[in-house]
């Protein structure tokens, strides 16, 4: 074995991120590492490269017990990493980027710029890349920069190249070039750890797969012995406590008028051809693996990203929003995936957080009408059952579930017609999850149209009236309520026709 990581554990301020994870890679092998967001892939990688230090476990690299203190130390031993965001210095030249930290030097200890240029050009040529090595790296496309990063790894005499979602920003032709490069590396006995989500790509290029979930490595297998369905099942796993199926009215869904109709929507490489409908008073689920374009679809509907092709209709009228403010004015609300990054303002009170989107309408003579604000806040705290000491409590003191309720209330008090909610129960404990889902159900029963993006099967099964499945930026299946089952969802997500 080139690399053997055993029983790796790591916790961040008491929260466990890895629990006795293991990973083994042989020389000249392409190993796939898959798992959902938060499964622990990047933590495992960072421990290997020395960006983080492990709490326990052993790492053998080339049969030597190692514990790298810094990324520099692991590079020196022959482990190179190509990160998703391609870590090169954009304003420095191609040649410099290939040699940074290991520059060829003249007798005087100064840069040997001639050797650097020649070496850079030569190594790029082995990948059929003929570019001006004096140009700043920032001038080149993502695919070219990735090749430069790989060239850097090769000149480092890397024995193991880690590629973190290397295809996420490449088009098909560029992916082909990348795969050729990977095969060249393989032939030279270099091992590749390939982190990715697109199943077809994984099956094309990888020899074996390691699957992670909840900080653990749950399966190791040769790629050929792992059917797609099985792989997806391992990745998504099952929530410990099943939600009670949320009671729904049993009327005929198809009779309800269509409120939101997205047809053939496309934008960039993440969203290629997505169609999804949400009817009045229903919860429409949007499912798919990581990177399938779920969140990006929501961003298009909400006017964050530009709709490049296709159409969006609301109540039958074509709409095209230049910015979120237009979408909000039209009665659309978006509760985003990551509450911490673009949702809550931690130090502000519940009152302020809740009425943020409503402030423009709360003005009386130019200042906030406190009496009305108080009335609205009191109403929603009661209606949604937010557990708090007082409306003036800072929102950061609330639990995840209660924070989510406040965010929900933020949009509800603007009286939306359509609510898009991305991963409504992420980071919320099981009990609160069911409560949030029930809340969404009640809102839908009152006529609200909900588009619920979720990566949790149980959640979709419990709450959604229909589920549209995305794969690689395309909607590949729509499952109505009577067709919804775990197997049906899994096979649609694995993009299998059965």
């Amino acid at each position, binding site marked *: 074995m080139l690399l053997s990581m055993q029983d790796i554990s790591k916790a961040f301020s008491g929260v466990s991120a890895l629990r006795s994870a293991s990973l083994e890679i042989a020389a000249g092998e392409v190993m796939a590492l898959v798992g959902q967001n938060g499964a622990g892939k990047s933590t495992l990688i960072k421990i290997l490269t020395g960006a983080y230090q492990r709490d326990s476990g052993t790492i053998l690299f080339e049969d030597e017990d190692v514990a790298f203190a810094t990324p*520099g130390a692991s590079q020196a031993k022959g482990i190179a990493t190509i990160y998703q965001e391609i870590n090169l210095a954009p304003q420095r030249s191609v040649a410099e980027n290939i040699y940074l930290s290991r520059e060829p030097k003249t007798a005087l200890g100064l840069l040997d710029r001639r050797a650097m240029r020649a070496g850079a050009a030569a190594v790029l040529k082995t990948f059929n890349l003929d570019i001006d090595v004096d140009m700043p790296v920032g001038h080149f496309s*993502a695919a070219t920069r990735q090749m430069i990063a790989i060239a850097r790894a090769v000149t480092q005499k890397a024995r193991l190249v880690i590629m973190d979602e290397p295809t996420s*920003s490449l088009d098909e032709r560029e992916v082909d070039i990348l795969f050729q490069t990977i095969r060249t590396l393989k032939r030279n006995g270099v091992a590749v750890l390939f982190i990715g989500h697109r199943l077809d790509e994984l099956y094309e290029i990888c020899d074996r797969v390691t699957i992670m979930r909840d900080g653990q490595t749950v399966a190791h297998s040769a790629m050929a012995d792992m059917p797609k369905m099985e792989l997806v099942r391992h990745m998504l796993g099952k929530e410990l406590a099943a939600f009670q199926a949320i009671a729904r009215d049993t009327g005929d869904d198809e009779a309800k008028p269509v409120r939101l109709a997205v047809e053939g929507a496309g934008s960039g490489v993440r969203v290629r051809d997505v169609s999804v409908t949400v009817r009045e008073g229903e919860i429409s689920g949007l499912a798919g693996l990581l990177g399938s374009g779920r969140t990006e679809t929501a961003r298009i509907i909400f006017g964050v990203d530009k709709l490049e092709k296709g159409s969006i209709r609301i109540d039958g009228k074509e709409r095209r929003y230049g910015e979120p403010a237009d979408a909000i004015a039209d009665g659309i609300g978006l509760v985003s995936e990551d509450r911490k990054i673009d949702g809550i303002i931690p130090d502000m009170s519940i009152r302020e957080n809740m009425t943020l989107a409503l402030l423009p309408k709360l003005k009386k003579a130019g200042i906030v009408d406190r009496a009305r604000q108080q009335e609205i806040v009191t109403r929603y705290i009661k209606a949604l059952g937010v557990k708090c000491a007082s409306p003036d409590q800072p929102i950061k003191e609330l639990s995840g579930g209660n924070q989510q309720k406040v965010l929900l209330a933020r949009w509800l008090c603007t009286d939306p017609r359509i609510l898009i909610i991305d991963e409504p129960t992420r980071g919320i404990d099981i009990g609160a999850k069911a409560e949030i889902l029930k809340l969404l159900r009640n809102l839908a029963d009152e006529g609200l149209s909900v588009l619920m993006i979720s990566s949790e099967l149980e959640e979709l099964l419990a709450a959604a009236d229909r589920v549209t499945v995305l794969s690689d930026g395309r909607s590949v299946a729509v499952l109505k309520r009577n067709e919804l089952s775990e197997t049906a969802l899994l096979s649609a997500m694995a993009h299998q026709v059965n």
Partner: protein
Amino acid sequence: MLKTLSRPFIPKSSGDFARLGVLLALAGLILFGALRYDNFISPFNILSFLRYNSMFALIALGMAFVIITGGIDLSVGGVAAMASVVAAYLSPYGWFPGLAGGMIAGLIAGSINGLIITRMRIQPFIATLAMMLAAYGTALLLANNQSVSVSYDTGFTTIGQDDFLGFPIPGWIAALAYVLGWIFLERHPAGRHVLAIGDGEATANLMGLKVEKTLFGVYALSGLLAGLAGVILASQFGAGQPTEGVGWELFAIASVVVGGTLLTGGSGSVGATLAGALLLAMVFNILNFENGLGWISLSAYWQSVIRGAFLLVVVVLQARLMKKTEA
């Protein structure tokens, strides 16, 4: 994600444009001065111009390295004042103790900046602002709130006042510092690392560069050069000056920016920084001559306003140039 990846970065030529601009402006001002004032091109004016402005050129050089990493050093004025006091106290023991003492005082202050910034992860703006206050306080404490005369018997004043081969010694010092600085930034691996770190610290770290060490070194260097400027100050004016140095950091930052170095880090040039420092100093020089003509009489306050306005014009022009080349 895709957007950030395919975003066009600063083109190769934008910095070059700015550098060309600053050289043109400098040439224009010199031409203007030469045509308008009788003694502008006189040896006396040129030599005293270089003698006086070498101090500013030195701190601008240190500032250039700091700004290239994406940081800032607000403490240089205070550190120079403190170093001038230390140098003045040590000058009776010989020119070398005076010189070395001032430089070491600067190096210590800069090293503390570097440690606070890299080890405690404090913003450079805050860390060096605190150092500025501390350095002024130390200078006033040491000097008992008054200027400290230097010794005229040990040759200490030679450093700031005399010539070597017909060229002021401070000018030689600054010229040497700039040549070394240029070689370091352009030709030495560690200099390229300074640029790469300014391009993105996290990236540089992942590429295996020694980010903390480099940042520490950059702030220590800035302190060292501020200390050297303080030594020249004490030597040139015959006294350690605990209240001098106010606004020096702004002069240095302005020189660096006028020289086309981006405040966001990752690009910059030693040569253009020198041109920037000379350009700003030249504006000062011309205002002095204008006063001397007697047509108008500009108080120091008005001069400050005019220099500020000039700086604003240059920076705005530069930003526009950058935008154009970027598009």
